[in-house]
């Protein structure tokens, strides 16, 4: 376990030095500030449009950070040949994989904490309330969703040759699941065979990332999701992440590194 943490620590340090997060955070803050400076009909209490914009930017930024950072991890090690001294140490390939995953995922979690704290401040400035439990649920679900995305990107970085193609494919797949994943079964019911069965199969196979999107509930001040249901969703994310990491390990353990 210590070895995994040591590798993840290196990844965290690398992410800390990179400029991606800072740039995305500044862009998010700037756009939110500009949109927040607009008043409609002299009413300073209108806030939901601002919450929607800010949360959208946070989601987009988090996907960029998660996919962009994870996709480079193993290809960069191979390209710079630093993977060989790493492999020369008493660490297994599974530990390297888990360390890389943990580092990227933790970095995403830290970034999300900062993003959500900023969001909370923006919302509180107009709403004068702190629904902390709601924000915690949204943050945790978002982070759990990123675990699946990070694991998916890690698998992509082992299967696909170029970093750019991995980033593009993972990003498109993630956005597509977020947008239409929920409706695949409904669409399949209106289709003829065999496409209906294929689409239904796809519906059951894909990780339902849209489950973790609590933006609408936060924007429109809906009550908390029952904690039991929320916990099941987190277990679902953990199961999918484990499955994707297992697949990654199966690919990585036999992969030639040169």
């Amino acid at each position, binding site marked *: 376990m210590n070895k995994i943490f040591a590798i993840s620590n290196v990844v965290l340090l690398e992410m800390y030095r990179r400029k991606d997060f800072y740039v995305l955070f500044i862009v998010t803050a700037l756009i939110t500030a500009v949109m927040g400076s607009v008043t409609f009909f002299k*009413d300073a209490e209108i806030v939901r449009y601002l919450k929607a914009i800010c949360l959208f930017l946070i989601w987009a930024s988090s996907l960029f950070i998660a996919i962009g950072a994870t996709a480079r991890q193993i290809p960069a090690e191979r390209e710079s040949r630093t993977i060989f001294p790493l492999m020369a140490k008493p660490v297994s390939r599974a530990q390297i994989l888990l360390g890389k995953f943990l580092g990227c995922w933790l970095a995403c979690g830290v970034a999300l904490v900062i993003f959500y704290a900023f969001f909370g401040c923006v919302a509180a400035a107009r709403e004068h309330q702190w629904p902390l439990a709601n924000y915690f649920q949204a943050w945790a679900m978002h982070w759990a969703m990123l675990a699946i995305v990070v694991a998916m990107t890690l698998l992509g970085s082992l299967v696909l040759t170029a970093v750019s193609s991995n980033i593009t494919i993972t990003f498109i797949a993630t956005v597509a699941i977020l947008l239409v994943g929920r409706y695949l079964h409904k669409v399949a019911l209106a289709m003829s065979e065999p496409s209906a069965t294929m689409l239904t199969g796809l519906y059951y196979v894909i990780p339902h990332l849209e*489950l973790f999107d609590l933006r609408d509930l936060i924007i429109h001040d809906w009550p908390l999701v029952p904690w039991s249901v929320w916990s099941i969703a987190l277990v679902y994310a953990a199961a999918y992440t484990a499955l994707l990491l297992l697949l990654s390990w199966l690919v990585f353990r036999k992969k030639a590194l040169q």
Partner: protein
Amino acid sequence: MKTTRSYVLLLLLLVVLCSGLAANVDCWYMGWPGNHESSFNPLEVMIGEGQKLFAGSFYREADVYYHSGYYPTIFDNQEAFKTAHMAEDTGAVASHNQGDEAGFMGPPLDFFDAFNRYFIPNRHTHLDEGGPTDDLSKSGEVREILPWLKISSDLDPENVQTYVVTAYWLRTRMGKVAEGEQVLREGLRYNPNNPQLLYELGRVYFENYHDLRRARNIWEAALGSWEQQMAGKPDSVKFSFDNKFIVEQLQTHLALLEETAGNFSAAIAHLEQAKLVSPAPDRLQKQIDELKQKLAAPANVPAAAPH
């Protein structure tokens, strides 16, 4: 160094020349008879009629906010959402909705579908009724639809409904009567003599300012404008669902105004006109009978004196 300076100066000279030429051509273009541009708004120049698509999308977004996010997508049954509920609730827009507005999602198709519904808005509510909290004291939260309506009206100033909806919620739930009136007058600048806008403006004078004389003038002007617009048009257009609705609203409100002013015979005349286009003439006949009884009574005391 000297060469770099020369290049910079040359570049500056070119920039000045180009700007001067562009300004000169622009002046000529503005005065050119072949110029059909209605405005020089950069957005309009860039996307032209495409603005209306975006405007429609923002108008829909306002209705999404009115429902606190509980809204059908293209994959759901949209029969109960053909007319935006935020517009329908103003009483100034005819409703084309039918079906179950609360159950557009239908029963869950599978485990994921059922599970998913915990994480999305899953109950039909309206912001003016408190939204998800069902707290009527929070009806002012209907303000949240206003940014989208404002953007929509900026992008498509010819969409009358946007002004009507904005003005209605501003004056009824937010107490901003002056702002509501201003919105309607802005709408009238882009859509002169529009009966729907005039009807809503009349309501501002009748319901908020209690100025019966001006309300009457505005509503009569709306009826006159409607007749002018419909002159020569076939009956299928003249008596379309939307047209009949606005005429009925104008006539019944004029009747109410006359009744308030104590002019019962004028009120009866307006109700008779409304009956011709109303989907519920029996209800109006009942009102007419009541007014006739009042008219026949020995002492007619007006409910309120006209201003």
